[in-house]
């Protein structure tokens, strides 16, 4: 069953179409990879889906209901949450407080939120950093904090915007394992990533964007063998 349906979504900035007539859907429990060259409109699409920019045209349906006109906070409450390509820790608050603020989307009790937050910190392996200031974490741990905070809102669909960007291979591997572990729990994910090896490993399906348009969609194998994708993005070495 499709948990997210994107139909004919366009987003214009002035005369520029950052997304043009993009349609695809994400199956429940699967990982959808979203790739494409810089400026292809991947992050713009995330912003449309999560309510930061309303789509200029088209409709996005999540869990059976239209998201048109909904603000990001409502969309989070419905069960869809995103992380940020450029991490956005609440710098002067502790790591635990950051994740608690995510958890407070589902409870009014600070104690309950603290419990939920500790669980998620353990999931991403940051439990020993709980009392540190979020602003003082190194980049690898900030990325994990983004994920823990998003998970604490108890989403049905997690949108990860380049969580491996700027990480060394060992850290990337930890994130890959984390994404796969989250999938094991049945959570649907949509992942923007530039690291082709990683995205091929984790994705069930992949959508390729180019100049705002959908260039191709399919399983990782189908996508790498697609001549358009090779020409526009991958280059010959991947083919």
């Amino acid at each position, binding site marked *: 069953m499709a948990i997210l349906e994107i139909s004919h979504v366009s987003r214009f900035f002035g005369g520029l179409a950052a997304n043009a007539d993009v349609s695809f859907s994400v199956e429940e429990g699967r990982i959808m990879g979203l790739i494409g060259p810089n400026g292809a409109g991947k992050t713009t699409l995330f912003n449309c889906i999560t309510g930061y920019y309303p789509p200029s045209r088209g409709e996005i349906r999540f869990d059976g209901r239209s998201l048109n006109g909904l603000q990001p906070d409502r969309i*989070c409450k419905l069960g869809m949450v995103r992380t940020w390509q450029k991490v956005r820790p609440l710098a002067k608050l502790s790591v635990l407080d950051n994740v608690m*603020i995510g958890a407070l989307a589902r409870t009014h009790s*600070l104690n309950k939120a603290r419990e939920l937050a500790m669980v998620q910190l353990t999931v991403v392996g940051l439990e020993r950093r709980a009392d540190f200031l979020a602003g003082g974490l190194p980049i690898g741990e900030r990325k994990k904090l983004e994920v823990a905070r998003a998970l604490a809102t108890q989403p049905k669909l997690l949108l990860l915007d380049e969580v491996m960007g700027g990480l060394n291979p060992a850290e990337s591997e930890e994130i890959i394992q984390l994404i796969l572990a989250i999938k094991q729990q049945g959570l649907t994910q949509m992942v923007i990533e530039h690291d082709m090896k990683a995205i091929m490993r984790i994705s069930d399906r992949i959508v390729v964007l180019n100049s705002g348009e959908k260039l191709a969609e399919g399983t990782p194998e189908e996508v790498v063998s697609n001549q358009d994708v090779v020409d526009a993005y991958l280059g010959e070495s991947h083919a």
Partner: protein
Amino acid sequence: MRAALKLTLFLIVLGGLVAFPRMVQSPYFLQLMILVFLAVAQGQSWNILGGYAGQHSVGHAAYFGVGAYVTLILLQSRQIPPWWGIWAGVVVAVIVALIIGAICFRLRGPYFVLASIAVAEIMRLSATNLKGLTNGAEGILATDIPSLRWGERVVADFSISKVPFYYIGLGLALLTLGVAWGVAHSKLGYYLQAIREDQDAAHSLGIPIARYKNYGLMISAALTSMTGSFFGVFVGFVDPPTVLGLDVSVQIMLICIIGGMGTLYGPVLGAVVLVPLAEALRSNAVTDLLVKVGAVSPESKVGLFLKENLSHAHVLIYGILVVLVILFMPEGIVGALRKLTARRRREVA
């Protein structure tokens, strides 16, 4: 253990403050303490919106003025005693806050600051020109405040001494401290801080930012209005510049900035430092002290110069000191103290 220590310390200070008027009869010191309480309450009220939510309003005079005006207008034209008038002020301030919030919170950062100034200026000009309601630039004089009675017993007679104002001021300071504590230890406080740190991130985590900013503003406005009512009755007079001027807004903000924004004790420390400092500079206590210590002789040129001019320059000196504090303690007194203790802890470890 640390919590118990804090509580004990708090109770000792509180006990001292409650006993203060019995030990010190001097009306001067009583007055000084009342002004400190007022500043604590003002700073703490601003702190909820400016410190925790990071919405730096430079127009809190609007709510301060509303409280002062509503209470004194009701007292003078309707003979409604101030302990009822203060609540009317709160109601009006919250309504004003709702209107201002609906308009200004569409704006972020410097635009919000400018809008907050504009609103306070509109209020000041309105108060100056709506002569029928506010008596214009002449202001309103509170002639006599009825004494507060419980049955037949007079609980507080405001005409004899300042002691009732002392306890009401103390109560107001404690009230704002209590509210700020409650906010800081609740979902509201966490959400306000999330908004302060990063609005977009907060929005993505399910926080309806406009609604929570409005909650913060309403609480802040209600408390600020109460401080305005207290000030109006205590001074016995309001006119537009004393309660609605831009300098009132800045003063409220400074208490919090100097003390430490977004901390529970910041406004307290800010008030304890700023009010006596302003008072000492105004009354030229600095020159007296220098003379007493023997640093300057009163007959020397320097001594005479200081005596002549220092009190005239009190606003200038105050301003320079504020700039120095902001430059060297950007996170206020509380921030500087924290850094100091953190360093010491590291040295010990």
